[in-house]
C-alpha cells in the first residue's frame, strides 16, 4: 500500500468550507499545544479568549462586532484585489487615509452643523475617494509600468502613517496632544447605547451603524463578484491576463479600477472606525486592521460571506487578547490560523489516494 497525491478535478463549496473550518480547528489545537509547552493551561486560555469575545454575552459580542466592522470592510477590499490576483497588502494605509479624509470633512473642511445623514455620507465618500486613490497609485504603477503592487502598497502604508502623524501631532493637533478635536455630534455614527435612556438594556453596547454598512457592502461585493459580468471578468483577468486581453478586456484599466475599489473599501473602514468608535483621529487608533484583513480574506477563500465569518473570528482574537496575559497569545493564534489556512490550500488542490502496489512494483530491486 502506498499513498499518492492526485490533483482534484473539482472543488466543491462544501469542501472549501470544511477546509477553512478545519484550518481554524487545527490552528486552535496547535496553538493550544504551544501554550501547553509554554506552561499555560491551554483550555483556560482559549476559554478566556472566547468568553471575552464571542460567547460572553451582549457586551462581549458588541465589542467583538465593533472590532469586526473594519476587518470586514478591509477584508472585502482585499478580496476584490486578490480575486484579480492583485496583491494589495496595503489596506492599512488606505484605511488610514480614509480616516484622515473623514476627519477632515467632520472637523475641518465643512460646517459642523450639517445634518448628520449628509455629514456621514460626505465623510464616507471622502474616505472612499482617499483610500481609493491611495490604492490607485499602486494600481496605476502596476498596470501601466509593471511596478510590483505588493511592494508599492506596503510602502505606502508607512507613508500614510507618517502623513497622518503630521496632522495628528501638528496641523490638526488639539493642544499639542497626539489627537484631533472630538468630532461634532453630527459626525458620530449612531450606536445602540444612544437609545439607552429609552431601553436601559442597551446601555453600554457600543456597537454602531458601521456593522450595517459592512453587511450592506458584503452583499454588494457578493453580487459584484459572484453574479456580475465584471466579477467574472475579474477572475479571468486574475487567472490569465493574456486570456483577458485575448477576449478583449482592457486589462490595464481593469487593474486600476480594481485597486481603486479595493482601496475605497479599506478607506471606508477608516471612516467607520473614526466616526463610530474614537470620534476623532488619534495616534495608533488602528491595531493593524488592514494587515489582519489580509488573513481574513485568505481564510475566507475570497468569498464575501466567508470574510464576514473570518472578520468575527479575528475580531474575537483581538478582543480576547486583552483578557489573557501575555497578550501575545492572541497574536500567536492569529499567526497559526494564517499558517494552517495556507497549508489547507494543499488539500483543495490535491487528494490522497491509496494505491495498491503492483505485483512487480519494485521491479528495480527485484532484478538487481
Amino acid at each position, binding site marked *: 500500500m502506498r499513498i499518492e497525491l492526485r490533483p482534484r478535478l473539482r472543488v466543491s463549496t462544501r469542501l472549501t468550507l470544511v477546509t477553512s473550518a478545519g484550518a481554524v480547528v487545527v490552528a486552535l489545537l496547535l496553538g493550544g499545544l504551544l501554550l501547553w509547552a509554554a506552561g499555560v493551561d491551554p483550555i483556560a486560555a482559549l476559554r478566556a479568549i472566547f468568553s471575552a469575545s464571542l460567547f460572553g454575552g451582549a457586551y462581549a459580542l458588541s465589542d467583538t462586532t465593533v472590532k469586526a466592522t473594519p476587518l470586514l470592510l478591509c477584508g472585502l477590499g482585499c478580496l476584490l484585489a486578490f480575486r484579480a490576483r492583485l496583491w494589495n497588502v496595503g489596506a492599512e494605509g488606505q484605511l488610514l487615509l480614509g480616516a484622515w479624509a473623514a476627519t477632515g470633512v467632520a472637523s475641518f473642511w465643512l460646517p459642523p452643523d450639517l445634518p448628520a445623514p449628509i455629514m456621514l455620507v460626505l465623510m464616507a465618500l471622502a474616505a472612499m475617494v482617499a483610500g481609493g486613490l491611495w490604492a490607485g497609485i499602486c494600481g496605476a504603477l502596476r498596470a501601466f509600468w509593471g511596478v510590483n503592487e505588493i511592494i508599492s502598497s506596503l510602502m505606502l502604508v508607512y507613508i500614510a502613517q507618517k502623513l497622518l502623524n503630521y496632522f495628528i501631532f501638528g496641523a490638526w493637533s488639539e493642544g499639542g496632544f497626539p489627537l484631533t478635536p472630538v468630532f461634532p455630534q453630527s459626525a458620530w455614527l449612531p450606536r445602540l447605547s444612544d437609545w439607552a435612556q429609552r431601553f436601559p438594556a442597551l446601555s453600554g453596547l457600543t456597537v454602531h451603524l458601521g456593522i450595517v454598512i459592512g453587511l450592506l457592502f458584503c452583499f454588494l461585493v457578493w453580487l459584484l463578484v459572484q453574479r456580475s*459580468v465584471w466579477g467574472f471578468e475579474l477572475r*479571468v483577468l486574475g*487567472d*490569465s491576463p493574456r486570456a483577458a486581453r485575448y477576449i478583449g*478586456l482592457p486589462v490595464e484599466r481593469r487593474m486600476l479600477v480594481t485597486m481603486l475599489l479595493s482601496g475605497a473599501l479599506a478607506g471606508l473602514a477608516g471612516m467607520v472606525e473614526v466616526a463610530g468608535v474614537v470620534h476623532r483621529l488619534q495616534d495608533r487608533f488602528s491595531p493593524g486592521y488592514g494587515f489582519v484583513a489580509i488573513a481574513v480574506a485568505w481564510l475566507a477563500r475570497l468569498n464575501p460571506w466567508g470574510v464576514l465569518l473570518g472578520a468575527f473570528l479575528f475580531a474575537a482574537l483581538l478582543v480576547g487578547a486583552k483578557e489573557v496575559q501575555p497578550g501575545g497569545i492572541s497574536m500567536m493564534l492569529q499567526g497559526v490560523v494564517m499558517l494552517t489556512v495556507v497549508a489547507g490550500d494543499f488539500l483543495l488542490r490535491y487528494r490522497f489516494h491509496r494505491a495498491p502496489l503492483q505485483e*512487480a512494483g519494485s521491479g528495480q530491486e527485484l532484478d538487481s
Partner: protein
Amino acid sequence: MAQAPVVRLRSLSKHFGTVHAVDRVDLDLYPGEVHALLGENGAGKSTLMCMLAGLYRPDAGHLEVHGKPVSFHSPRDAMAASIGMVHQHFMLVPTLTVWENVLLGGGLPPLLRPKRAAAQVQEAAQRLGLRVDARAQVGDLGVGEQQRVEILRVLMRGVRIMILDEPTAVLSPGESEALFATIRTLCEQNCTIVLISHKLEEVRRAARRITVMRRGRSVATFDDPMESTARELAAAMVGEEVSLELHRGEPVPGDVLLEVRQLEVRSDRGLPAVRRIDLQLRAGEILGLAGVAGNGQVELMEAIAGLRPVEGGDLKLCGQSATRLSSRQRAELGLRFIPEDRTHTGTAPSLSVLENMVLRRYRGRGPWLRLDALRSRCQQQIEQLQIATSGPEQAARLLSGGNLQKVILARELDPDQARVILALHPTRGLDARATAQIRQLLLDARRTDPARGGHPARPAAILLWSEDLEELLALSDRLAVINAGRIVHTVRHGEADLPTVGRWMTGSSTEPEAARAD
C-alpha cells in the same frame, strides 16, 4: 539486431487515476537507431518516454540501461545515464537568452564569461545544423526556433539517447529535413533517437523501427518501416479502419469580410514583421497562410485581431473600417481567434470548462452574468465533440491539449457569432481522430450547411496558418505563401503541390537547410 540493446523497458506501467496511461509495455532501443513511437494522442507514448527520461516514476516494471537495472528519481538521473528528452511543451526560461538557457542546469561554469559562452553555444549550434541566434532572448523567439534551442540544450549536455516528442510539429518541411539530417548524423555516431510522432509518412521515412502504441499498450513493432504500408500502420494505430476523409463541399465565395491593405506590423523585438501585406478574405472560403514559423504569420493574425498595434495600412472587417477598433469591438463584429497558445491565452487555466467555453457569450442582461443558462449547451458540446472531462465544472488546466483545443474551437467556431475566424495551428499535437474532426469543423464553418444547427448559418471566412503543409493544402480554398513578412505567391486549391509550396516558403534565394546540414 546483433548488438545488445542500450535500453530495455520491461513491463512498464503507469496509471493516472483510473486511466492506464501505460500498461505493461516492453521496448528495446538499440545503439544508432531511430526508433519511432507511433500512436494517437493519449496512446501513452509521451508517458512511456517520460518514465525513461526520469520525469515519472513507473508504477510497475523496470528499466535497464546498458544491461544494468536503473531507477531514475529525476531527469538529472536520466541525464547522467545520457538519456534526455525534448518536450512538446518547451521547458525554457523566456526571460533568458538562448545561450543561458542552453547552459542552464549543467553547462554553466562557476565564473561566467558571457561572450565566450555565447560563442561556444553558437559554434555548437552551427556544427549540429541548428539555426539559432545564441544571443537572442528566448521569449522573443518563435516556436520553431525555441524547439531548436531545446534540442541544442539536450545535445550539449552529452545526451546519447535523445527522445523527441512530436519534434516536427512546429517545423517547416525544410526545417524538418534539417532536423532529420541532424538525426542521421547523430545516429552515425551511435546515438539512439526516439521519435514520438503521429505522422505516418514522416515516421516511415525517418525511422529504422516503429513501435505502435494504442491505449497504453504496445500493439505492434515494425522492423522495416518501408515494407509496411501507411494503411497497415494507421490500422495498428487506430485499431480499426476509420474514415479520415474530409468533405470539402462546394464553397460559394460571398461578400468580402476581411480586407487588409498595406498592413505593417512590428514583432515583439520591434523589427518589421509584416511588410505591406494585402489580403482579401470572402465569406465561404479558407485562405491558408503557408510559411515557416517566424515569418510574420502570428503578428499578422494578432494585428487583425486587435491584439497588436498596427504600424501602417488599413483593416476592414465586415465592410467597416476596423483599424482603430479595440479587440473587443472587433470581436463584436464577429471576429474570432484560435490562438497559438492554448493554455494561457486561449483559456484561463484555473477556470472551469464551462467558464472557458462561454468566454464569448457570458454577458447576460445588463451587468449580470449568465452561466447557468449556458450549462446545458456546454454539456451538449462536451458530448458532441467528445471532450474527455469529468464535467463542465472541471478546471480547464486539467484537460489534455487536444481536449483543451476542442473547448476553444467549440467557443470560437460558434455559428451564431463567428464571421471571420483566424486560426493558428488548430490541430497541432492532436490525434488523428480529433484532427479529422477539427478539420471538418473548419471546413463546415465556411459553408451554408443545414448540418450546422437549425438556423441558416452564415458562412464564415477563415484565415488559417498551420505548420502542417498537407493540412494547409487540404483545407485551403486559396493559399498565400508568406515569406519575411510579405506574401510572395497566391494560388487556388489544387494549383500547387507540396514541394512547390515548400520551395516558395523558404524563398528561392535560400537553399534548403538540409543541403547545408549534410
